């Protein structure tokens, strides 16, 4: 079959040898290339994930720069730091005055609600001006609306937040009296708050937090001009600074002893309650200022000694350092991304902070430990990483890891007995010819695409099982009993009447009786259900054990994914079993052991490592299977072990969420962390399995097997 080669001339010899070396090199290179490919996947994922755990960095840079005389009196600073508004209403830049606010009063307080949102000015005559911004973020001074907050005294402090249908402004006068305005397109309603406060902060939906000494009060304002106190508590030390974080549901309180605390507004049946957690303190000096940043629930704390800290609501302190001046900020500006913070202090110095903490919300604790999220009262593991608004992202990988393992475990519960049984049958009870026929059938099974299995299981089997739950569960009892009964019947028949039944394999022979049995079980189950479980097994389960049944559940995933991994398991287990050296089994049989004894005591123990590696590889498959889980489960990130509830796996989560994640963002990198976890898991499992297999082969060879 090889073409007869003409005898090569001697002069070609060097060329031939060179060619030989070259070819060997190329071939070896591609062999190594496979190793490189595996490493490349791991390394890429690792590199993409590492930035998640980078330390936050804050660069503090003080510049006496643009300061002219007026900067000392600045109350507001533009985003780029080039323009500021002075106490007496002059808008200035480094060259001089740009515009003047038409008022005789001075500006005592300024409040902002974020990028492209209006600016509120509190005046010394008790008035408030709301200056809108246009689409590009430029202030429209001419369109400012004027409202009255206080009659007698001027505004000393002011906060502003967007709420239903408009804007809420809350202010405090120099005597500590508090009042608020709810400003909508139709009307502006003034809400008098009968409290005195040193510090105020506005949360979402008109929640107003006030402190006076050690007392912390929470009010609810409403658009119709009303308001009521929700909660009143005492803090350990007198409060010196107060701020709501992005979203307005978490309140940060700084006290005179340097303590930093988080208060959550968590709803439960009893109404609003405040719950407290503490952060790592900066020092023991009083906290002077808290600045909430517009992204990731980050905030800055500045204390009396000029210590500066960067914190995240859940992951805590991310950075601590020293601001160069100890004087208080008078006008603060924050860019839309929350990466640049600037302030002018009382000395007219411009402080620039560049904050690099793109993944500050991720820490080992937020990933793996239960957290109390906004709106919840208990610590929970939750995954909801894709957020579109101001909601708090929930970054716990635990529910996903749980779902992955749960799906794989239930799949193994279905697949391992079936596949091992089939392997045992074909290795021990089938003739060589029968085996040769069965193998291609199983290989075809392996080739069935996950998307087809998933679609049939998700859109056809899941609703079917929901309607015929009792019947489906009955199958698990009927099939083993039925098949043993069939065997008994077969032997009785062949003995009693000495029939010469064709020597077909039990495996093939059982297909028709089993199909009939399944059909019978399914059609009889309604009666069974009516008689035994009061007509509705699901209701009965709920009453008896409190189990709920979800249509898309682990049972269906287990069956569907089990079907998908049976072929892999079968092939490997069959290989291990048929590789057991023949002399071992023959010896056992010759000594008088039955086939079953030989199987259990000789063949299975000998093949055990191979079977173990088959199970490991099968588990690796099940963990990474995507389409079946995606289509069959409801992708619910639950943490229940119940067979009848859904789950969300890492792999399906990747398929759903990766296309929407902004490249390089926290969500994107967390998804890649999920991919890395999958990779590492399968890497470890497969490597171990391969080593077991290798050892086993060596052992068989010693016993004279042919594997």
């Amino acid at each position, binding site marked *: 079959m090889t073409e007869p080669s003409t005898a090569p001339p001697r002069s070609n010899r060097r060329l031939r040898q060179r060619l030989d070396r070259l070819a060997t090199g190329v071939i070896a290179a591609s062999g190594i290339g*496979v190793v490189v490919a*595996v490493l*490349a996947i791991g390394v890429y994922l690792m590199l993409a994930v590492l930035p998640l755990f980078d330390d936050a960095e804050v660069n503090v840079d003080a510049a006496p720069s643009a300061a002219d005389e007026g900067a000392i009196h600045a109350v507001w600073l533009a985003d780029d730091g080039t323009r500021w508004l002075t106490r007496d209403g002059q808008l200035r830049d480094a060259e001089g005055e740009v515009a003047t606010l038409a008022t005789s009063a001075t500006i005592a307080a300024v409040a902002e609600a974020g990028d492209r949102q209006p600016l509120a000015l509190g005046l010394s005559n008790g008035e408030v001006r709301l200056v809108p911004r246009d689409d590009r973020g430029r202030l429209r001074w001419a369109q400012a609306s004027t409202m009255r907050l206080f009659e007698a005294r001027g505004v000393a402090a002011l906060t502003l937040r967007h709420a239903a249908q408009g804007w809420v402004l809350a202010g405090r006068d120099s005597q500590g009296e508090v009042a608020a305005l709810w400003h909508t397109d139709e009307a502006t309603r003034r809400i008098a708050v009968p409290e005195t406060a040193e510090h105020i902060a506005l949360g979402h939906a008109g929640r107003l937090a006030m402190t006076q000494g050690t007392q912390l009060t929470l009010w609810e304002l409403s658009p119709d001009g009303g308001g009521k106190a929700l909660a009143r508590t005492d803090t350990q030390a007198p409060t010196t600074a107060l701020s709501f974080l992005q979203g307005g549901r978490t309140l940060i309180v700084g006290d005179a002893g340097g303590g930093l605390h988080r208060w959550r507004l968590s709803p439960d049946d009893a109404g609003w309650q405040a719950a407290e957690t503490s952060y790592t303190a900066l020092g023991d000096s009083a906290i002077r200022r808290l600045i909430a940043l517009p992204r990731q629930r980050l905030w800055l704390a500045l204390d009396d000694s000029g210590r500066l800290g960067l914190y995240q609501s859940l992951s805590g302190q991310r950075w601590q350092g020293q601001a160069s001046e100890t004087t208080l900020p008078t006008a603060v500006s924050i860019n839309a991304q929350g990466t640049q913070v600037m302030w002018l202090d009382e000395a007219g110095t411009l402080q620039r902070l560049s904050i690099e903490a793109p993944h500050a919300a991720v820490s080992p604790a937020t990933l793996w430990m239960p957290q109390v999220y906004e709106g919840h009262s208990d610590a929970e593991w939750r995954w909801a990483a894709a957020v579109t608004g101001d909601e708090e992202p929930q970054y716990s990988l635990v529910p996903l890891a749980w779902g992955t393992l749960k799906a794989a475990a239930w799949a193994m519960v279905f697949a391992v007995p079936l596949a091992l049984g089939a392997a045992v049958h074909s290795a021990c009870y089938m003739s060589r010819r029968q085996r040769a026929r069965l193998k291609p059938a*199983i290989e075809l099974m392996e080739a069935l695409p996950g998307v087809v299995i998933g679609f049939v299981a998700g859109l056809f089997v899941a609703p079917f099982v929901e309607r015929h739950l009792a019947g489906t569960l009955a199958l698990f009892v009927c099939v083993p009993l039925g098949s043993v009964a069939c065997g008994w019947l077969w032997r009785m028949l062949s003995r009693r009447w000495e029939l010469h039944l064709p020597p077909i394999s039990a495996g093939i022979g*059982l297909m028709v009786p089993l199909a009939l049995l399944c059909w019978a079980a399914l059609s009889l189950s309604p009666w069974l259900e009516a008689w035994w479980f009061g007509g509705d097994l699901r209701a009965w389960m709920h009453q008896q054990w409190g189990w709920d049944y979800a249509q898309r559940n682990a049972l269906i995933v287990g069956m569907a994914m089990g079907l998908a991994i049976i072929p892999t398991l079968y092939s490997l287990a069959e290989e291990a079993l048929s590789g057991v050296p023949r002399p071992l089994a023959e010896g056992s049989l010759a000594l008088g052991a039955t086939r079953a004894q030989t199987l259990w005591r000789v063949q299975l123990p000998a093949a055990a490592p191979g079977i173990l590696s088959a199970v490991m*590889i099968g588990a690796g498959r099940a963990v*990474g299977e995507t*389409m079946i889980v995606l289509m069959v489960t409801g992708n619910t990130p639950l943490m229940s072990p119940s067979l009848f509830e859904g789950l969300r796996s890492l792999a399906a989560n990747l398929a759903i969420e990766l*296309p929407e994640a902004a490249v390089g963002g926290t969500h994107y990198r967390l998804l890649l962390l999920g991919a890395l976890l999958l990779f590492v898991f399968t890497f470890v499992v497969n490597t171990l399995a391969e080593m077991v297999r290798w050892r086993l082969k060596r052992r068989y060879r010693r016993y004279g097997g042919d594997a």
Partner: protein
Amino acid sequence: MRIPRVGGDGVWRWLSGACVALSLLAVVALLVLVVTRGLAHFWPADIEQLTLDDGQRIAGIARGSEANEQRYFTANRDLDGEVWRWVETQAIERRETPPELLYAERRDWGPFIGRLTAVETPAGERLQGAEAERRLRRALAGDAEVTTLHLRNVEGRALEVAFAQVASLSWPNRMDIGDKLAAWGHGVWRFLSEAPSDGNTGGGVWPAIFGTLLMVMLMSLVVTPFGVLAALYLNEVARQGPLTRLVRIAVRNLAGVPSIVYGVFGLGVFVYGLGGHLDSWFFAERLPSPTFGTGGLLWASLTLALLTLPVVIVATEEGLARVPVALREGSLALGATRFETLRRVVVPMALPSMLTGVILAVARAAGEVAPLMLVGVAKLAPEIPVDGEFPYLHLDSKFMHLGYHLFDLGFASRDAEAAMPLVFATATLLVVVIVVLNLTAIILRHHLRARHRALEHS
């Protein structure tokens, strides 16, 4: 564990036999379900005309029932606003199958069920009754021209449809079994040869078939040389030692890495990494519109090539291991170099097994969906990526894929119920493609083994 002392044909034999039977049964049931439903989709079912006890008339195709209600597919979304009707069984007074009821698939608004009243010709004639039908049949056959059809539903509401809007038209109640078979064949052919229409809920899957084929072809172009070379290294070149063990473990790992992780890798490294750079070097003028910086045919093929590499390696290795050592030794003894032995003796003998590997890889790739969702598959890309425009083969374009199309039809089409038969049809096609590929590989391997056995004994 105490083992029950039973004879050789004990409980275990039957229990383990049940495992084989159950596994096979599950697969057979799955295949039968998919294939029967898929193929039944093209069968022109009879249209029933129902007269209800309140005098209402309904025409539709029976599609399942529940308790005391029957579900009918009544089409005519533009007239009724819905395409389904539930009818209480006892409310039905009369059931007929009038021969003149027609079923038309339109390019807009989906199917129509009703009667033909007249047709208009380009000459402005208006033909009615039997003449209209004759003319329409000729027009459908391409022998005559018709501009507009005047139709009426069973309730008598009139409707005009431009002939160009009609994708197909038939009178199912009038068909005999031969006609129906022919119509079934025609339906299958249209499914295979046409592009999707009506928001992916009608028409065929040709772009998806082509996209799948093209993608796996490109993939096999990449995976074959690398897979074969790596197998040659493992089996022929390297000395068996720690390094080959390392490579074997790597192969095992490549086979075990979840496919979605390949997708992630492809997205990060090929699409955003390589693609982004290619764009900034060669296609800077088109930025910000990306050329290779977005998922596409090339990146999908490369990703799947990586994914199927172990399949080719394992199959090739198996083939190489079966080449008798004597042949190699003979070749070397005659003075051939190792490369020459490989090229002239070993590789030709192992060629069929390499082919087997490539076919298995193709089968695997054809059914793989998860990684493609990340690296370039599209819901709709009706134009196939090969055309007369330079560079003829558009490696940067997105493509449709049978597996993804199946997913999309099942989960994102407009009317999930109406799309269900189409989903089964697509699944059937996918299963048939994959089964055929696998059978080819199995048969090939069978012959190969027979040949080697013959060689060993000779």
